[in-house]
C-alpha cells in the first residue's frame, strides 16, 4: 500500500498535532484547574482538524432525499469543514503552555512543532509536495533562529526596568503589524 504525498502530509499533521497537545500538557498537574478543560479543547480541535483533512473538500452535489443517518453525517462533515479547528488547537495549546511555569526551551520546541504542524496542514489540504516550501526555507530558518534567540533570552535572569518595557513595546508593535496584515485591503 502506497501513501500519496498529501496522505503523508496528513499523517504528519496528525502526529504533530498529537505531539503538540501532549508536549504542552506535560505535566498536567502544573497547568492548574483550567488545564483539564484546555487539554480537552485542544484534543477536540486536533481531532476535528484531522477529520477535516480526511474529509477533503465538500462535494458539490448530494442526494436530495438521503436518509436521516446520511444527512446527520453530512451535517457533521460540514461542521468539521466549516470551523477553524487548526487555529483553535494552536490557541488552546499556547494557552495550555502559558498555564505552566516558565520553561523557555520547552516553549521554543512547542513553537517549532506548531509551525511544522501548520505547514503539514497546508500541504495536506492543498495536495502540494514539500518542494513548494523551498522559497520560504530561508525565512523559516531565520524565524526559527529568532525563536531560539527568544528562548535563550528568556532563559537568562529576568530583565527588569527599561529593557523589559522595550521588549513589551516591540512585541505590541509586531502584534499590531500582524493584525494590519490580516485586515482586508482595498477591494478595488
Amino acid at each position: 500500500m502506497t501513501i500519496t504525498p498529501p496522505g503523508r502530509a496528513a499523517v504528519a499533521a496528525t502526529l504533530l498535532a498529537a505531539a503538540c497537545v501532549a508536549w504542552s500538557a506535560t505535566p498536567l498537574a502544573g497547568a492548574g484547574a483550567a488545564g483539564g478543560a484546555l487539554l480537552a479543547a485542544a484534543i477536540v480541535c486536533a481531532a476535528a482538524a484531522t477529520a477535516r483533512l480526511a474529509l477533503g473538500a465538500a462535494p458539490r452535489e448530494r442526494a436530495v432525499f438521503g436518509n436521516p443517518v446520511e444527512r446527520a453525517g453530512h451535517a457533521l462533515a460540514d461542521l468539521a469543514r466549516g470551523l477553524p479547528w487548526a487555529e483553535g488547537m494552536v490557541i488552546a495549546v499556547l494557552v495550555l503552555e502559558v498555564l505552566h511555569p516558565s520553561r523557555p526551551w520547552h516553549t521554543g520546541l512547542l513553537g517549532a512543532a506548531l509551525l511544522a504542524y501548520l505547514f503539514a496542514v497546508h500541504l495536506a489540504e492543498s495536495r502540494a509536495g514539500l518542494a513548494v516550501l523551498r522559497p520560504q526555507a530561508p525565512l523559516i530558518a531565520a524565524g526559527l533562529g529568532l525563536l531560539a534567540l527568544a528562548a535563550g533570552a528568556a532563559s537568562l535572569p529576568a530583565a527588569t526596568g527599561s529593557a523589559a518595557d522595550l521588549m513589551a513595546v516591540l512585541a505590541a508593535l509586531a502584534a499590531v503589524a500582524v493584525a494590519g496584515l490580516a485586515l482586508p485591503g482595498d477591494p478595488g
Partner: protein
Amino acid sequence: MTAPRDQAGALARGARRVRLAWSLSPHAGRLITLALAGLVIAVITRRPEFAGVAAPAVLLLAAGRPGRRGAPGAPADVGVAARASAPSLVEGEEAGLDVTVTGHGDHSVGLSLHPRFAVVPGAGAASAAGEGSRLPLRVTRSGRRSLGTLEITLRDRWRLTEGHASVELPTVDCYPRPPAQQTRVVLSRLPSRLGEHPSRSPGEGLEFTGVREFVPGDRQRRINWPATTRRGRLQLNMFAAERTQNVVIIADASSDVGEPGCTPVDLALRGAAAAARAYLAVRDRVGLVVYQRGVRWLSPGLGTRHYFRIMDLMLAGPGPADPLRRAAGISRLPRAALPPGALILVFTPLLDRRLVETLRDLRERGFPVLIVDVLNTEPPGGTDSLSGLARRIWRMEQQAIRFSLRELGIPVVRWDGEQSLDEPLAPYTRRVMVSHR
C-alpha cells in the same frame, strides 16, 4: 515529442479568459493566528519565548504581504482551456480531461474537478497541479453528460494568497456499453436482398443444400462428379441463396426505475446497442425505435456509420411529452421505419401497458416479435403483510402480461444485464425463427 506540445498549444489557443477572485489563503489565516496568539501572550505575560514562537509566522507574513488583491503582480484573470480527451465515450471507459491554464505568471496552479452525476474522477483527478494537466475520469451512465465544474486555484510563492476561479466543463456523449453477442436470431423468410444469411431458396451462396439433375444452362463447375458416377447422369450441387434481413430494435426507455446505472432503461439501451452491433456486423439492415416520452425512430440501414447514427439517436433527448399517443406512434411508423416482415427485437421491462398493447398489435399485423425482458427491480415497500400482498399481486400481473404475450406467439426471454445476450436468446438463435402470420 512534439505532438503533445502541439496538442497543448492548440488547446491553449482555444482558451477563454476567466476572472480570478483573490483572498487570503487558509494557511495565511493560521499563520496570523499563531503570530497574534504568541505576541498577545508575550505582551500579557511578559514571557519573551512566546514572542519567539510568533517570530517565524511574523517573518513569513511580512515577506508575503498578503492582501485581498493577492500578492504584488498577481494576475486579474487567466486563460483556461478544457476539453475531454475524446468527444464520445463508452460507459465505464477511462478518459481524460485536458486542461491548459495560461497567463498565471509565477503563481502555482492547482486544479480540482467537481464532477456531475454519473461522472467519476479517476485516481488523482480530484486534484492536480500544473498549468497543463490531464485529469482522468470515466462516465458510468450513458447519455449526454456534463462533466461538471473545474476549480482553478492560483497560489503565490509564499502560499499566503489564493486566486479562485470556476469553469463549467463541456458535455460529452457517453454511449451505452454493449454486452457480448455473437449469435443472431434469423427469420425463416428473408427479403430478396443479398446478404449473409442462408435462406431456404436455392441460389449462389456457400451452404450446400442438395443435388439435382443437370439441365442445359447450368454451370459446369458445380457438377458433382461422385454423384454423377453413381447415377450415370450429370448431377449438380445446389446451394442456398444468401439473404439479408431487416431488424427493427425497439428500446423502451420509458421506465427509469431502480438503481442508477442498472435501471431497465440502462439495460434496454445496452441490449439495443449490442443487438445493433451484432446484426450490422453481418450486414443486416438495422433500424431503431426509442420509446420514451415520444417515439424517435431511424430507418433500417447498413454499416458502421449507421451504428453511430443509432447511438446518437439513443442519446438524443426525449421528444415532446405525449403519453397518450406515444404507443400509437410505433404502430403509425412509416413503412421505411417498419418494413414488412422485419424482425422486431424489443428491449423492455413491460411496465407500460400501452407499449404492451402496441406489441400485440404488431404481432397481429404479422411482424415476428421477440421481447427481451429487462425488468430487474420490484416496487419498493415495507415488510408488513399488506405490502407483501401488494407485491405478490404486482408479480402476478407481470406474469400474466408475459403469459398473454407468449400465447400470442411472442417469445419473451429474460436478460439481467450481466450475462451475454447469447444465453437468453440461445433457443432462438440455434435455428431459424419461423415467421408466419
